[in-house]
């Protein structure tokens, strides 16, 4: 990373491809800041707009604010300053009991998959529907469809421990998509995977993005970011220091 301080404060927000065509905004942060109760400033004056259908990489060193950025989007933390709008909802004004509805508009996957080890592949995906009150018919219809999409229709009765890391991440992705979310957030989805498997997961995310879902992927994987040439948001010390379309992992100018 070769970022200078003077560049940090004066970032011109990049306009994504979809925004240029006038698509609806799914994520918008306006002077958003998060200061934790212990006084740590995790995010500072972040301004960003992500239109529907974008594919965005979120990069930055550990402690740069990526995790807080994601927690902010799913309203695990509230902005202590500024405004954040996700899927048409103002998160500051959103009432507590409306939070579950927001989260159904956001799918999220993690580096450690977070599957339930005692449940089969089918049950892991079905669980996300079951706990939101879906009918059995809906579960029987949607789960096979999603497992088909991620290429796991052969493994429905397997337990997570019987699957490879890449397959487990596919289950997690299928689960994240059960409510047909507007946004899929992937927090280091390839962090535990070998390079070949990582590429397979990226291919799957691209495929999902092509179906219309906005994808935000936090990653340290330079190779992938550089090869993909998608929009890159770079965080450093809680500030958004770069927002560039079709960019590389590090600043190139």
């Amino acid at each position, binding site marked *: 990373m070769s970022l200078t301080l003077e560049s940090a404060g004066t970032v011109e927000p990049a306009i994504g491809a979809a925004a240029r065509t006038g698509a609806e905004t799914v994520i918008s942060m306006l002077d958003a800041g998060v200061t934790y109760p212990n006084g740590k400033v995790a995010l500072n004056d972040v301004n960003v707009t992500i239109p529907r259908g974008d594919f965005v990489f979120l990069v930055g060193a550990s402690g740069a604010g990526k995790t807080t950025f994601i927690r902010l989007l799913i309203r695990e933390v509230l902005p202590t300053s500024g405004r954040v709008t996700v899927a048409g909802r103002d998160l500051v004004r959103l009432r507590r009991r409306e939070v579950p509805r927001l*989260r159904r508009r956001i799918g*999220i996957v993690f580096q450690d998959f*977070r599957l*339930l080890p005692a449940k089969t592949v089918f049950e892991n995906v079905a*669980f996300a529907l079951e*706990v939101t*009150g879906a009918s059995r018919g809906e579960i029987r219809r949607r789960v096979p469809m999603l497992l088909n999409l991620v290429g796991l229709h052969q493994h429905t009765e397997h337990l997570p421990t019987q699957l490879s890391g890449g397959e487990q991440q596919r289950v997690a992705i299928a*689960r994240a998509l059960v409510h047909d979310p507007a946004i899929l957030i992937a927090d280091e989805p390839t962090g535990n995977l070998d390079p070949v498997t990582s590429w397979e997961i990226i291919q799957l995310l691209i495929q999902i993005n092509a179906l219309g879902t906005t994808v935000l992927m936090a990653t340290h994987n330079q190779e992938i970011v550089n090869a993909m040439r998608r929009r890159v948001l770079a965080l450093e010390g809680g500030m958004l220091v770069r927002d560039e379309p079709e960019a590389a992992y590090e600043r190139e100018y």
Partner: protein
Amino acid sequence: MPFLRFIGFSAVRAWQGFWRNAMMSLATTATVVLMLVLLSGLFIVISGLNSGLQFIESKVGVTAELVGEPQHPDLTQPQLDALIAYTRALPGVDSVTYVSPQEAMDRLREVYKSRGQELDLGESAGNIKLYASIEVSLSDPKYGQSVTDALSQRDEVVQITTKQAAVDKLVGIINVIRTVGLVAITLVGLTVLFMIVNTIRIAVYARANEIEIMRLVGASDSFIRWPFILEGILCGLLGALVAIGMVAIVWDPIQPVLFNVFQMPVAVGSRFLATLSALLLAVGFGVGALGSWISVRSYLTA
């Protein structure tokens, strides 16, 4: 339909949760049983004593001993009739019975006989004469004092005795038993509450991963919380059912005691087991719901 699915989901999860940590759940249920058995014992004893008390109170009357020889001349029949008529006219008086000195002596002999003894007055038997008296039964024990006051002003009356002292003593005993019992049950109840809070806390921790995923995929608070509340209620209700079973088993030997010793009215007695069962179910349900609610409030903060 969505509501039924929610109930079904919560009930299944509560049942799974109960057996997932079976040792803890069963230990908690056992403390619920202990508490409810204590409560049943207290309920039975208090109900019995109360019935006994009511029976005694219904029999409580006022006995007025009348003047007579050798200190005074015996009352003449007109005097006696006038006194009885006066007493009958007092408010709250149900009936008035004259007991002659001879009848009084016969009763005394009966009392001795019932104890297996013979009343032996020796040589002086011929000189001993008991007071004649009138026995007043009351339509309600609350008139005892006014009737006593009215009779004690009459010259024909030497002394008045009532069973009020015995009643007061019994009321005192009942109050002591009730207080001691309620204190004991409250202490056991607090232990039970603590056990339920702890059981549900462990259940919440055991499901920490699931709860996290439920939150992330947008499960509402009720889907996250109610299974735990139901699990606590399950502990309480299971405990109540076991306690009811135990009471039902000992009901046959207890029943005659209630009816014969404590003179419980049959109308109350026939409903007794049902009333007690409803009480146990309500208390079991309540303590289970309260304990798990406290636990969910404390350990499942959003």
